[in-house]
């Protein structure tokens, strides 16, 4: 069975735990602790090590879903979790104080995953507050990191259907890249 490891990244409160729970075929593994930092994100618990889930997307294809803890204090876990991943779903909550800055920060930090397989951006909580539009995310990405080809979706992280669209888009990208020789590869004689 072919297996992919996809990493869910993004800031605290973006919906990474919810996204993995909505996609996973198994009861997700969670490492949540009581959140004492209610200023950064007003929620009862926060992930402190990882989230883990699995989804089977075909007769012989399984995707392992890992989520990072969103706070930069847990950056050591980001490096650990990045090692085996081949792609990234970057969740950004649209009601974040600086959602575009957060998007660019995580794209830069996990750039290796974009290079290795691909990345998609999933904007969550668009129904709360007045954050940027999807077009503004695209414009900011094109201006700040020209040349990157990253689809951007608006999602409800709790919706399996919406998260599947983002995930399948990423998997297609990973597989198409794997099937086509790198543009940096010398053509065979």
């Amino acid at each position, binding site marked *: 069975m072919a297996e992919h490891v996809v990493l869910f990244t993004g800031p605290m409160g973006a919906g990474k735990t919810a996204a993995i729970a909505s996609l996973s075929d198994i009861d997700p*593994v969670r490492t949540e602790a009581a959140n004492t930092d209610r200023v950064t994100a007003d929620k009862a618990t926060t992930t402190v*090590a990882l989230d883990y889930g699995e989804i089977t997307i075909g007769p012989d294809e399984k995707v392992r879903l890992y989520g990072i803890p969103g706070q930069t204090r847990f950056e050591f876990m980001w490096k650990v979790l990045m090692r085996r991943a081949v792609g990234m779903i970057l969740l950004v909550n649209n009601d974040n104080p600086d959602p575009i800055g957060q998007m660019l920060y995580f794209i830069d930090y996990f750039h290796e995953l974009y290079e290795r397989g691909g990345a998609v951006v999933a904007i969550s909580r668009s129904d709360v507050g007045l954050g940027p539009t999807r077009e503004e995310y695209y414009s900011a990405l094109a201006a700040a990191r020209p040349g990157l080809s990253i689809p951007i979706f608006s999602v409800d992280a709790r919706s399996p259907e919406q998260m599947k669209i983002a995930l399948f888009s990423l998997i297609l990208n990973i597989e198409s890249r794997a099937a086509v020789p790198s543009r940096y590869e010398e053509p065979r004689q």
Partner: protein
Amino acid sequence: MTTALHHNKDVVARGGVLLTELDSICTSFLYAVLVTDDGFEVASVSGSDHERLASMVSSLQALAEGVAEELKIGTSEYVVLATEDGHVIQLRIPRQQLVLSAVFNKSETLGKVLSASKSTAEQIAVMVETSK
């Protein structure tokens, strides 16, 4: 809303005193940190870069408790990391959302430092319950 324990001056001060007492009864003691479940430092003795260590302690505790729960073998009592040069002992403060992590060299037995760490954890639990 109750004050988070790492912002409670009484808990921070008295936690530091109890960690210092652990240092005084274990000659192999190197350093220790008391952290909230979500990885904020409450108190520490010796060592450096406690902020990073506090986050790691939080992650390790969550993973250990997650494994114990997954295997249905009861709650995690303590975690021991044995290395060439020493031991890291980590345990939940009874009845609290706090974790104690202490580092020792190998000049004393694991049993001795584990026993001392458990005793300190219990004292910290009582201290928190009687704090202002």
